[in-house]
């Protein structure tokens, strides 16, 4: 998607700085030198293109800076930005599916993730969102997301379970 960059009409976040203040809030210093505290970084395409188009909004949700490509951000600022984004995202990656009750909806899933084993409820098969031929996002009844990065990496049993839904 980097070939899209040339015809972009949006200013990429050049001169801006990021830091934390003593209350732990994220502070943005924009190109005019103004300080905005309590800003929030948001990925515009968290699934399709997480490394591009990161928007930094103020507490009211107004956009202050739109970063087109993280590569173009100075390493120090980028570090802060990526840490902050990582702290906001809780998407366990499913490594193994242990058990699924498939006969009735909602179905109960027992899985092993990169953040440890867990169990959750899926309302229906519609809550499994296919992202690509080999990856999928599961959204449980509480809105928590679980990512299956690559079904080919899973064991045979997990693949058989998923085959029903994908």
């Amino acid at each position, binding site marked *: 998607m980097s070939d*899209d960059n040339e*015809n*972009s009409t*949006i200013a990429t976040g050049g001169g801006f700085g990021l830091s934390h203040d003593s209350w732990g809030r994220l502070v943005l210093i924009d190109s005019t030198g103004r300080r905005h505290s309590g800003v929030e970084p948001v990925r515009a*395409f968290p699934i399709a293109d997480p490394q591009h188009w990161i928007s930094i909004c103020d507490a009211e949700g107004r956009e202050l800076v739109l970063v*087109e490509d993280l590569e173009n951000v100075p390493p120090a600022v980028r570090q802060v930005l990526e840490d902050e984004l990582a702290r906001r995202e809780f998407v366990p990656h499913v490594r193994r599916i242990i058990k699924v009750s498939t006969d009735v909806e909602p179905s109960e899933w027992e899985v092993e993730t990169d953040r440890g084993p867990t169990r959750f409820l899926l309302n229906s098969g519609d809550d499994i969102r296919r992202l690509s031929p080999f990856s999928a996002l599961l959204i449980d009844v509480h809105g928590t997301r679980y990512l299956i990065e690559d079904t080919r990496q899973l064991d045979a049993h997990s693949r058989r379970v998923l085959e029903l839904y994908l």
Partner: protein
Amino acid sequence: MDDVTPTPANSGAWKALSDVWRPRTASLLAPGEVLLAWFEADLDDRLRYASRLVLLTDRRLVAVDDPEAAKQLALSANGAAGNLAPVGGFRQWPHQPTLTLRLKELGGLGTLELFDETGRLAVWRYTPTRNSAAHRLVQRFEGLGETDGDWEAEDAVLACPGCGVPLAPDQTECAACTGVSAAPNVSSLVRLGRFARRHFGMVAVGFVLSVSATAAGLIPTYLTMPLMNDVLIPHQNGEAVNFGVVPWYLAGMAGAAIAAWLLGWGRTYTLAWVAERIAGDLRTAAFAHLQKLSLEFFGGKRTGDLISRLGSDTDRICFFLSVNFLDFAGDILMIVMTAGVLFKLDPALAAFTLLPLPFIGWLVHRVRDRLKRGFQHGGRAWSELTSVLADTIPGVRVVKAFAQERREIERFRRANDHVIHANDRVNATWSFFGPLVTLLTEAGLLVIWAFGVYYIAQNQVNVGMLSVFLLYNLRFYARLDSMSRMVAASQRAAVSAQRVFDILDRVPSVAEPARPVQTGQLQGQIELRNIGFKYGTRTVLKDVNLTIQAGEMIGLVGPSGSGKSTLVNLVCRFYDVSEGSILVDGTDIRSFAIDEYRQHIGVVLQEPFLFYGTIAENIAYGRPNASRAEIIAAAKAARAHEFILRLTDGYDSLVGERGQSLSGGERQRISIARALLIDPVILILDEATSSVDTQTEREIQEALDYLVQGRTTIAIAHRLSTLRRADRLVVLERGRIVEVGQHDELLKGTGAFARLHQAQLEMAHGDASP
């Protein structure tokens, strides 16, 4: 004019005249008289179907009431003035300023009246099929004395031979005259062959496998005869027998059975594969065709019916092809081969065996028609049922709000009863038919036993031969029995196929031109030239003339039902005009390829429709290859960017049927971004802000103001205040333009717009004061 063209044959109207009328009309016209228009009324005074011709020439108006009498009459060159009395089947009125023609159309009946200063001179009545032709006659009558050259040019290009209605360039058939498309009169199952052709290789393989499997299946039975005659019977009779050949016979039988199994497996798989492809292709073809049909088609169809045709009907065809058709082909092969073997063994016995066959054939023929009618009935009942579902499920909020669940259940139950009833009728037919075939089968076996015993007693055949016959016949009649079931299945599939072909045979009423003109880069100048539009018998638009400059913003106002939405639908070419033409940059829009033309048009509707998918996909709906930067830019311009960022998945959030539910204003801003992204030359805003509150309207308005810049815009709005930025306002009333002008200019006047504005002000005041 007279000296140049003495014959009437050169006029365009003349060419369009039907062959029936042409010789009769020729005798009526004087030398040098030019036929300008004609109109064939199709009812008489007492509203019975009859043919009445009205001719408009450059000299007079002629009415031919009796076509037969007209044939014998010739008229003197200078049609005597004042000759108003009916003369032998025709009447005539020379042109004079006091003559007026008037049209009335009401409730599917049209009346054309001719008046002069003394009163009514003549009346013609006609059905709505003649509406356009009547309008045309009146138009030309009123335009007498103006330049005739235009008409000639017009006539030379366009005219339907049936009714004289002008045709679009490249349009070969008149939409008013051609009713239902003529479906090829072959069985719809045969027409499925078109879809099988693509998979010819696999079909051929399947056929070869089928023949071999059937042949292999016959071998074990055939081997029974030598086993009986050469081994078992001699042994029973106390003769010394060579049991050494028995294993060979048995091995042969086993081998043939295994071969038949393997071949049958291959055959079933191959043909099921082909059936799945055929049904799949049929579904895709039907859906692709459906997408090409105009809005008019969808307006008259129920969603449930279409879904059931595309869904369950194609599935039924697939099931038939993969299961029943396979059996059927196998059965036919088996029957033919068995019959061959039987005749080879003993022609006389074989002839007796096949005795019940013609009777079964006759029975099948009788039953087939009954079943076909039954299944047609069933198919319609099923559509009815699906329609109830398609109605009720999206409208569930209304159902619940009015506490009408019970009624909907009742409606569903009634539709369901209908299905059951229809199926009962079919079941009654074939439940009788199936066992009857079984009975005939038994009869066939009985015949063989009787003749077999008789023949054996006469020593004409041996026991081995008889047992082979019996074995073959068991098979034979078992096949016949399954074929009788096949009759029902094939009729059901034929009806399903017919229902799918119904869609495929429908000719789009908005026709693609045969040789489309390239649109190129359009400027966006729109000219509505004398356009008229009818929906059924209702005239929605009439004689609308308007030129919109490139980049101009036009506000369309008027009461509900005044034809505003129809007008923009015509500009979008969702429908085609009934009369006149719409030109963009001087070219008739009917000569552009439809999809190429629509790429230049952006539409924002009152109820934005978002498809199931991500927000990014919805914004990029008109240009799927748009880059993310462009999507963000469009969303920002439409004031949608920031609320999208607040969603959990940003631009990747799912919208549509499920997923993130957005508010009306948010959905509208996404649809504005969608229109912005395709960067259209022409923009249509159809009540874009009327379904939202004032606060949201202000937000949307901001986005809209950005959107209209530099584009030819036609905006419809109920709230007149939202059209303040329009360059000109066009006020429509009952399908006609009644006022055109700038906002302030119109306000100062006392016309329709000033009245509308006043009414809205009063409403607003009424709302404000308690």
